[in-house]
């Protein structure tokens, strides 16, 4: 019997596919998310929009909050550690969380290195804006990838940019002759073995979710049609007028993403979406997606 193998780690992400992972900050929110059909929740002290508003250094949540949320639901519970902060990750692993998000939403703890995720039994998900970044994270042991988007904005444009770029780089790679693959790997700064595997599979070697700006059922379906395997919704649910209704609608939109009639139905009468932010009005130094190396 073997625990913590890469197949077991990546396997949980496979089971989350076609589903919606929702940010929650209290046990009550976690129950609303589970009731609405979330396939997992992300336990946080603050959602990204509030982290953005609060400023300062954002850190791992208080373990009490994470444990209370784990007690409240039967679905998997994820939690965030700062980029490079392997001790926060050790603490989260010891609590028994099901996935760790090494996340740019929190303030990075290391300006050069990410966590060596091979050292853990618990699986990790990491953000990426392009194929090179995704494959570097997989090389470090990440068992799941998500687009970075721009968290806490309710603006899907950056997430769209990131999934389009990843998919277009994969298509380019697939058309390269084998002789040119090593140079391609060098140019995107990615480990050659995972570049080769991506070429063979025609997709990332692990599950790839959308994150960072999804606020409506239509946003979720857009990301699915662009090739994502599932959806993270951060601030989009509990910063909206009707969290339970919106959560359920986004779950439906993630399954029926190719069915405009269903999408029209579930998009009706949801009330106000979260307030959105124009990306151009966020100073480059305030953009969370720039964090990570």
């Amino acid at each position, binding site marked *: *019997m*073997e*625990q*913590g*193998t890469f*197949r*077991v780690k990546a*396997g*949980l992400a*496979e*089971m*989350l*596919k*076609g*589903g919606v992972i929702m940010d929650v900050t209290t046990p009550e929110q976690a129950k609303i998310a*589970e009731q609405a*059909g*979330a*396939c*997992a929740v992300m336990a946080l002290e603050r959602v990204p929009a509030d982290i953005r508003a609060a400023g300062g250094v954002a850190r791992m949540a208080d373990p009490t909050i994470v444990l209370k949320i784990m007690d409240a639901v*039967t*679905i*998997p519970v994820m939690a965030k550690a700062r980029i490079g902060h392997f001790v926060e990750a050790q603490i989260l*692993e010891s609590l*028994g*969380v*099901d*996935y760790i998000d090494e996340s740019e939403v929190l303030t990075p703890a290391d300006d050069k290195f990410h966590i060596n995720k091979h050292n853990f*039994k*618990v*699986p990790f998900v990491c953000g990426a804006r392009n194929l090179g970044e995704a494959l570097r994270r997989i090389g470090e042991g990440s068992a799941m990838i998500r687009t970075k988007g721009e968290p806490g904005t309710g603006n899907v444009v950056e997430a769209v940019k990131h999934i389009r770029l990843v998919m277009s780089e994969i298509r380019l790679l697939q058309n390269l002759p084998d002789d040119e693959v090593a140079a391609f790997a060098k140019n995107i700064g990615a480990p050659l073995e995972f570049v080769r595997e991506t070429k063979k599979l025609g997709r990332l070697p692990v599950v790839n979710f959308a994150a960072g700006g999804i606020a409506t059922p239509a946003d979720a379906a857009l990301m699915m049609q662009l090739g994502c395997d599932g959806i993270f919704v951060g601030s989009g649910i509990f910063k909206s007028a009707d969290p339970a209704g919106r959560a359920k609608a986004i*779950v*439906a939109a*993630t*399954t*029926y993403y190719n*069915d405009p009639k269903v999408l029209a139905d579930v998009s009706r009468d949801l009330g106000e979406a979260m307030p959105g932010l124009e990306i151009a009005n966020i100073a480059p130094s305030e953009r969370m997606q720039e964090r990570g190396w």
Partner: protein
Amino acid sequence: MKIGVLALQGAFREHRWMLERCGAEAVEVRKPGDLDGLAGLVIPGGESTTIGKMLVDWGLMDKIKDRAAAGMAIYGTCAGMILLAKDIIGSDQPRLGLMDITVRRNAFGRQRESFEADLEVPEFGAAPVRAVFIRAPYIESAGPDVKIMAAVDDNIVIARQGNFLVTAFHPELTADDRIHKYFIAMIQGKA
């Protein structure tokens, strides 16, 4: 032979690939009409609470029960096993309840305790089955009509009752297609 894969949430893509590799025609099932003409249905791993709610909301629950009563075979992995169980310990979540089994969810623990192991399954030959358990359930007790095919420390992880087959683990995450071939043979009346 046309076999459906319930595609509401979870690892349905891998089951589709596996069925196609075994020579079956595999179709994704999201709406009640998709069940017409299917000889069998696979219910994949995923979140049983998510899938169960969607079965009710999208009118699939009763239709699947009707089709099963009319002879459609069903194979459930992990969440699929939970959804086929009559009794789920400590939960009132929606279910098909077609098999006389009592299951415990997340029975081996959380993700940290998830594992892979070799299972001896006489029906599938001498080579062990490499079984991947992910926050997996097991069957705590089964009725007299249920055939127990494998267990881990006395906890049942493969079982069959008539036209219904369940595994607590995920053969679709490995290259071993013997369980899918067994399911196809079941549909053909050869197993």
